């Protein structure tokens, strides 16, 4: 035991020394008090101190760090702002945590070409701020947009509340530049509408930092709609609200945003931000229309008619921009609000076909009773993307265990109804076991082969996103759901 500790200590010093040969001392952290802030990302239930943290400031430094790690066989975990919810940036105890936090510059905003070239550490919201003087904005708006970075958005293919109309990260990124683990430069996509060869950009977006490291991103900017209004519709029954969503789309309307919250969620939010939600309603829908004033007026009237016919008991339409933002403030603050009514919460991210919503919500309600845990629901209804939030206390190990079982059952239900275990948060370490439910061994094997085409020694973010077949066999046999790794010694990549 003591020998292992001293071996790993000497390895740490060896790697740190090699990094300091070309990085300033402040950019190489290895003392515990310095590496502690990097021990987890937004999925705080999982923690691991990295062996070394590297904080490069230039592309050349990134290239050299990767080359060095490849030659020393040190695994590398890239990290943006650390807001990810699936543990994609969870460090490795024998690896380098590569923080891209210092890549914070907006390099170019080109209003004529409607694009921005930014470094990966630029915050999502900062892109829209930089584009605003030109009447343009960057559309994907994950709820963490004030903190999360575009590099992390690319890694996770992040969504937001306006995806149905404006798409995910993959639809709004034109080009990325970066380096392979061997330090070779790579440019995927283009400012032109497409690039020659296979669409590797599509493959790169959402690859959870496992294929290469991104050092520059070109995003599409859209003209800011002239105006937007939102309807808050109240329903006395959750299923009716779900049906109303389908009715709106069947009527040929693609709302700019279409969100649903159930009563436990609206009550939690209302105490926190005072968004003006209808607390008597079993569920509320937020339906946004944007465009020219004439278009919005027309669409709001059509949505009101559909919602009324679908059984909405009350409708409130935002009268001005302040009220619109207030209606949205509650939705965007849903996670922190829930964080205030419970010591901990566990956020899920399954996507289902919209028509199965009622069934899945009933299933979740039954699980609340089965596990004795509360679970408010917020839901990107237009996209079929559910975020049930299980409330628990992490200090109670038994409750954490119940939470993980609850979550695993929900995700497996999502797969069973034709959906997916993750809509926008990524697999990371969190949902790696459920990947065994969603994919067959042949498919997982192909994912591994794809990774090896980019990273032959599996050094980039190993152990995330794609389980080994051995792990799935273990998972299936042991029926260990969610959470804690039963056999951390199993090979993973």
């Amino acid at each position, binding site marked *: 035991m003591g020998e292992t500790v001293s071996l790993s200590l000497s390895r740490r010093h060896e790697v740190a020394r090699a990094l300091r040969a070309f990085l300033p001392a402040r950019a190489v952290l290895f003392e515990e008090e310095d590496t502690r802030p990097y021990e987890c990302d937004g999925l705080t239930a999982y923690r691991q101190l990295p062996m070394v943290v590297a904080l490069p400031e230039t592309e050349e430094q990134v290239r050299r760090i990767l080359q060095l790690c490849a030659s020393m066989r040190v695994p590398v975990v890239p990290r943006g702002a650390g807001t990810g919810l699936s543990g994609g940036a969870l460090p490795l105890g024998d690896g380098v945590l590569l923080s891209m936090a210092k890549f914070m510059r907006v390099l170019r905003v080109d209003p004529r070409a409607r694009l921005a070239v930014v470094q990966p550490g630029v915050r999502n919201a900062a892109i829209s701020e930089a584009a605003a003087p030109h009447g343009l904005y960057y559309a994907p708006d994950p709820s963490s947009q004030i903190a999360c970075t575009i590099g992390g958005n690319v890694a996770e293919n992040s969504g937001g509340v306006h995806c149905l109309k404006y798409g995910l990260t993959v639809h709004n990124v034109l080009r990325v530049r970066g380096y392979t683990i061997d330090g070779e430069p790579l440019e995927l996509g283009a400012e032109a509408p497409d690039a020659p060869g296979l669409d590797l950009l599509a493959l790169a977006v959402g690859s959870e930092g496992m294929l290469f490291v991104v050092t520059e991103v070109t995003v599409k900017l859209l003209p800011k709609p002239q105006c937007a209004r939102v309807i808050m519709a109240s329903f006395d029954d959750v299923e009716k609200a779900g049906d109303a969503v389908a009715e709106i*789309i069947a009527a040929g309307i*693609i709302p700019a945003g279409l969100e649903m919250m159930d009563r436990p969620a609206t009550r939690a939010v209302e105490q926190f931000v005072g968004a003006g939600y209808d607390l008597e309603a079993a569920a509320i829908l937020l339906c946004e229309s944007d465009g020219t004033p004439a278009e919005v007026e027309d669409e709001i009237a059509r949505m009101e008619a559909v919602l009324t016919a679908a059984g909405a008991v009350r409708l409130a339409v935002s009268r001005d921009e302040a009220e619109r933002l207030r209606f949205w403030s509650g939705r965007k603050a849903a996670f922190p609000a829930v964080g205030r009514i419970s010591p901990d919460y566990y956020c899920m991210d399954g996507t289902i076909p919209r028509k199965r919503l009622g069934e899945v919500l009933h299933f979740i309600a039954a699980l609340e009773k089965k596990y004795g845990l509360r679970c408010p629901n917020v839901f990107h209804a237009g996209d079929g993307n559910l975020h049930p939030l299980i409330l628990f206390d992490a200090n109670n190990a038994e409750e954490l265990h119940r939470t993980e079982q609850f979550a695993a059952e929900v995700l497996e239900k999502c797969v069973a109804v034709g959906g997916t275990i993750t809509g926008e948060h990524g697999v990371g370490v969190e949902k790696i076991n459920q990947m065994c439910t969603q994919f067959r061994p042949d498919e997982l094997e192909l994912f591994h082969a794809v990774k090896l085409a*980019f990273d032959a020694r599996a050094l980039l973010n190993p152990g995330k996103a794609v389980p080994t077949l051995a792990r799935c066999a273990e998972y299936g046999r042991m029926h260990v759901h969610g959470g804690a790794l039963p056999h951390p010694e199993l090979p993973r990549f």
Partner: protein
Amino acid sequence: MQDQIRSAAARAAPLRLRGGGSKDFYGNPPRGELLDTRGYAGIVDYEPSELVLSARAGTPLAEIEQALAERGQCLPFEPPHFGEATLGGCLAAGLSGPRRAAAGALRDFVLGVKLVDGRGRMLEFGGRVMKNVAGYDVSRLVAGSLGTLGVIAEASLKVLPRPPAERTLRFDMDQPAALDAMNVWAGEPLPISASAWHEGALHLRLSGSAAAVQAAAPRLGGTEVADGAALWRAIREQTHAFFGGEEPLWRIAVPSTAAPLALSGAQLLEWNGGLRWLRSSAGAQEIRAAAKRAGGHATLFRARDKSSGVFTPLDPVLLRLHRGLKSAFDPAGILNPGRMYAEF
């Protein structure tokens, strides 16, 4: 299909994947035994309120568009048919039509695929939901892969409502003025759904709610064209007079703001200037160099002589990645070998 692939893999015999044959002209010449996907056809599932349609590879594209039209929906990327196109061929070619700059490209609407890889294994990626980040996004990678990674057996696509109102406007202007106008207007909140410039005339199509089209038209000016739909169909299907004749047709993709390309021959511009069709007998090297200087790339789209290569060559790192992916999906190298690049 799986049996045919397994047998071909065992014999290392190349297979030529083909649907309706409408795009036999595209890419490097096909070779190998024929694998015809047309027997595997039919719409599997279509739920208008889910905005998702799933169909088998051999389903005629026309049948899919008909089914969508009956429910007031459409394929927003307006893929060309070029004849009796099938869904599988449409996805494998990855071509998008006039609405691409406004609505997105074909790959943006791919939600999931069932794919038979080069070992004859039926694999499933993505799904039938709008958001799905489980595993690598193989279904979008397969779009436009020209059958080099697998046989697309079935696909699920996101579909959208057809715009209730459309109007086509014509503006007389030269190419620099048209490029300027297209890029400026694309940066404003206007419902422009297609653009095309050719021989001194810029055409724009407005699509959206009646109110939006009504409001935008007077702001833009120009003159209304009576049969706009016919014009956009002719551009999409390349039946427009520009596309006739024997001269090689180049498809040049550049940043939309790139200056006019100084190349001999006639040009037709689409996608706010991002796509420049060129009829020219100029040398491939000259055309590729001009495209590269402008920040883009050139594809020899239609030509009798393709000896200069169809697609812009890849740099060594990208080529290595392509080869690695090819051997991951098709270790025996039997699926449409050489159709995209001679190297795989």
